[in-house]
Structure formats: C-alpha cells, structure tokens
C-alpha cells in the first residue's frame, strides 16, 4: 500500500478565482469538515505538497505562478481543479484576460464542478485524487524495479 493515500498534503492556489471556491476550500480545513481526518494538511508550500488544488480561471499572471508551483511540486503529484472557473472559465470564460480552465495550463486529474464547489464535492474530489496518486506511486515503484538506479 502506498502511504501517499494516508497523508496527502495539499497546496492551494487561487488562480484568478472569485474567492467563492477558495472559501469553501478553507472551510474544508475548519472544524465542520476537518479534512485533517484524512491526514490532509494545507502546506502552503509546493515543495511539501502532493495535491495541487487550483481554483479560478487562470489569467496570464497566474498562469506563470501555476506553472511554477506545479514544477516545484515533487512527484508523484495530482492536480484537482475546483469550481466552474477552474474547469472551463465558468462565467468568465469570455472575459478577455482569462484562459478559462486550468487544464489549458497544466494537466488536471480531477475536476470538481460547482459554483462555488461545495465542501462535500471538494472532499470527494480529493478522495478521487488519492486513488490517482496511489496509482502513480505504484507506477513509479514498478519503473524503479525495472531500471535499477
């Protein structure tokens, strides 16, 4: 079994979101939803994170940040896009300054719909991401066995 599943540390970045989804995400960390039950900790630091939770529709400035944060996360990692904005741009998708959708910038593994995405959905999304994370960890182990370092 992979321990990644038992201790997913998340990094949250609001890439051009309206705050709605971010608040819901923060609410997940607080007593009512308390995702620390699953070992989830909001690290605030890409180098410690396993799951990248992104909200918002991404504009030019935040694109650079998102790319950088993604690059600074050590493998294995997954990306969860939260909210209509992060999925497709939502209501802002026609605005001139947004790309619309995190997947235009970095590969996204789980899409959590909603505007704002509800804490329950976010928890579900993270749980889904955990399976992918474990899959990746296993994959890496297999590869390591094939090519001894």
């Amino acid at each position, binding site marked *: 079994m992979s321990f990644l599943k038992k201790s997913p540390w998340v990094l949250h970045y609001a890439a051009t979101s309206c705050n709605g989804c971010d608040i819901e995400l923060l609410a997940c960390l607080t007593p009512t939803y308390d995702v620390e039950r699953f070992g989830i900790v909001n690290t605030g630091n890409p180098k410690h994170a396993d799951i990248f939770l992104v909200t918002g529709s991404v*504009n*030019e*400035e935040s694109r650079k940040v998102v790319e950088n944060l993604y690059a600074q996360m050590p493998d294995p990692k997954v990306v969860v896009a939260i909210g209509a904005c992060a999925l497709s741009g939502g209501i802002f998708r*026609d*605005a*001139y*300054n947004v790309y619309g959708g995190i997947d235009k910038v970095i590969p996204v593994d789980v899409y959590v719909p909603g505007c704002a995405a509800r804490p329950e959905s976010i928890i579900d999304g993270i749980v889904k991401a955990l399976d992918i994370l474990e899959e990746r960890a296993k994959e890496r182990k297999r590869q390591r066995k094939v090519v001894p370092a």
Partner: protein
Amino acid sequence: MSLDEPFNDLPLDQWVSTAERHRADGARLVQMTGTARGDHFEIMISYDKDYRCANYRTRIPRDQPELPSLSGVFLAAFTYENELKDLFGISVPGLAVDYGGNFLRTKTKIPFSGDVTIKKEKPKKPSAARKEAKPANASDTSGPEV
C-alpha cells in the same frame, strides 16, 4: 441614491485646480475611472463630502491621451491613475508612484481602450456533439442517485 448627483463637465485645464479646491474644502477622493468613446476618452472623478458626491467628467483626445496627475493633491489618486494608465493607455505625467504600466498587469495591454471587444458567440451546433457521441461510461458519469 445617486441619480441626483450628475456628472459635470470640466475642461482639462481645471482638472487639478478643481481637485485642489475640493481638497481645501475637506472632501475625499472617491474614485476615478474612464470610458472609451469614439475619438476621446472620458475621465470621471468623484469627490465626497458628508455623503454628498461631486462628480466631474473631462474629455481627453485619443491621439494625445494625457492627464495631469492628481497624486500631488490626493495621494490616493495614484492607484486610480495607474489603473487608467494600464487599462486605457492614458499617460499621467507627475504620478507619485509610477508603475510604468505594470500596476494591473493584463495579457493584452490597455484592454479598455476599445480594441478588445467581447461579443456573444453563436451557440455551437449540437450536431457537432452528436458526431462524437459515444455511450456513457456509467461509473464515471452517472449523476448522484437522487
């Protein structure tokens, strides 16, 4: 509310002196903004004293978009003027803290000057959708059982 607080036209050369007058009067700078019109920009400004707003509007030509800075009178003006600079491409000589067009950084430069337009696109034809339609993968997509 504020339908009774109309915008008064103001010649550009009284821009600063009006600000000074309001400042001496103890008013507060509420906001500054612009609108792009055909061949000119309208710049609007509002001062507030005791919940009453005095609104002004001045026009500056597109070919010479220059607005004297009010940041010497109201320091608060610097954010608005930087914003005007970034969104409308108006140059503001005498700006106290000049970000040089990097205050509100946007993908397209000076997007509010009228070059960028956002029109409603035609809805896609669903026939396109049908072509690639394939049967559902039940496990992934079935909605919640309600």
